């Protein structure tokens, strides 16, 4: 989902930068406030960031014959709320833009918007909806992480289609083309991310039940914990 350096017209770069900045600033405030209030949650914020680090470094093959990578932002969005993932995702993207020539500084705003804002917000919303429907914790985590990942890539396709509308078919023709490259490739990877996120959440529910309770992440095994 990385839009490469220079591959987005300047106006678009500025617009996406302006759109992303407040999320990153607000997210940074919520994270620092949380660390001050609950210092013991620092470790879990680290886990959420580390998960994004690992997953966004793994380029996996897909059935379309191309490679892409998961984002890992669903986990943190479920645990700490979507805003917290904006600064964390921004750090990962900055690392890749500067050291790896993967993504870019001018396209940073657009990339933050897709990976660190749309993905986490979608994941957190889906998690809440599925939990409200009284489905199990694991199902909610899986759907949230999978669909959040997928929507990140749909967002990238929208961003590119807006910048490069098809001379004949306009935005939609262009969107279909980019979505075929990004979103279709992403389907199996998004499912992988869903499974991996559930595995980590199961471990969290077992090892850090007290912290999860503080964060009001109900795993469905609370009775077990209190007993």
């Amino acid at each position, binding site marked *: 989902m990385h839009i490469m350096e220079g591959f987005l017209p300047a106006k678009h770069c500025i617009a996406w930068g302006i759109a992303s900045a407040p999320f990153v600033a607000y997210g940074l405030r919520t994270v620092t406030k949380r660390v001050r209030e609950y210092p013991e949650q620092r470790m879990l914020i680290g886990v959420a960031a580390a998960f994004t680090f690992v997953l966004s470094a793994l380029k996996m093959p897909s059935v379309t014959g191309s490679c892409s990578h998961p984002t890992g932002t669903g986990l943190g969005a479920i645990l700490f709320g979507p805003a917290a993932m904006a600064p964390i995702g921004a750090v990962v993207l900055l690392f890749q833009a500067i*050291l790896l020539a993967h993504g870019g500084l001018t396209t940073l705003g657009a990339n933050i918007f897709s990976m660190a804002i749309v993905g986490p917000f979608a994941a957190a919303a889906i998690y809440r909806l599925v939990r409200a429907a009284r489905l199990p914790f694991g199902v909610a985590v899986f759907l949230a992480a999978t669909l959040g990942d997928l929507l990140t890539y749909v967002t990238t396709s929208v961003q590119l289609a807006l910048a490069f509308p098809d001379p004949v078919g306009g935005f939609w023709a262009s969107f279909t083309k980019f979505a075929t490259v990004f979103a279709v490739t992403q389907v199996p990877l998004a499912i992988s991310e869903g499974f991996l996120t*559930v595995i980590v959440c199961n471990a969290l529910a077992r090892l850090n039940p007290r912290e999860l309770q503080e964060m009001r992440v109900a795993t469905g095994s609370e009775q077990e914990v209190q007993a």
Partner: protein
Amino acid sequence: MKRHQNLLMALAVVVLVALPLWMVHKPAPGPDGKEAEIFAGADSQAEGLIGRIDPGYRPWVKPLMEPPSGEIETLLFALQAALGAGFIGYWYGSASTRARLQREQETTTSC
């Protein structure tokens, strides 16, 4: 039960990654004799697509620095994954030890 579930999910991930390698076949070399490339990055495919939609578009900035070779790029990606995996391993080790010590303490005090 939970442990079983985790193992199955981990297996599913392995299958999801391995399946494309086995399903996608390399197309025959084109008429120009050039080998077709498979499993290229989606990001670079999008770059090619931009070139086809708007042939006049030229990237207006270049990356500050590019890894000098594919090997160096692999090194940096491996470093990124290792940092993340290292931290997750540290958390898992310390959290599971803490949980075990707590359990042991509870059983000794309740006796």
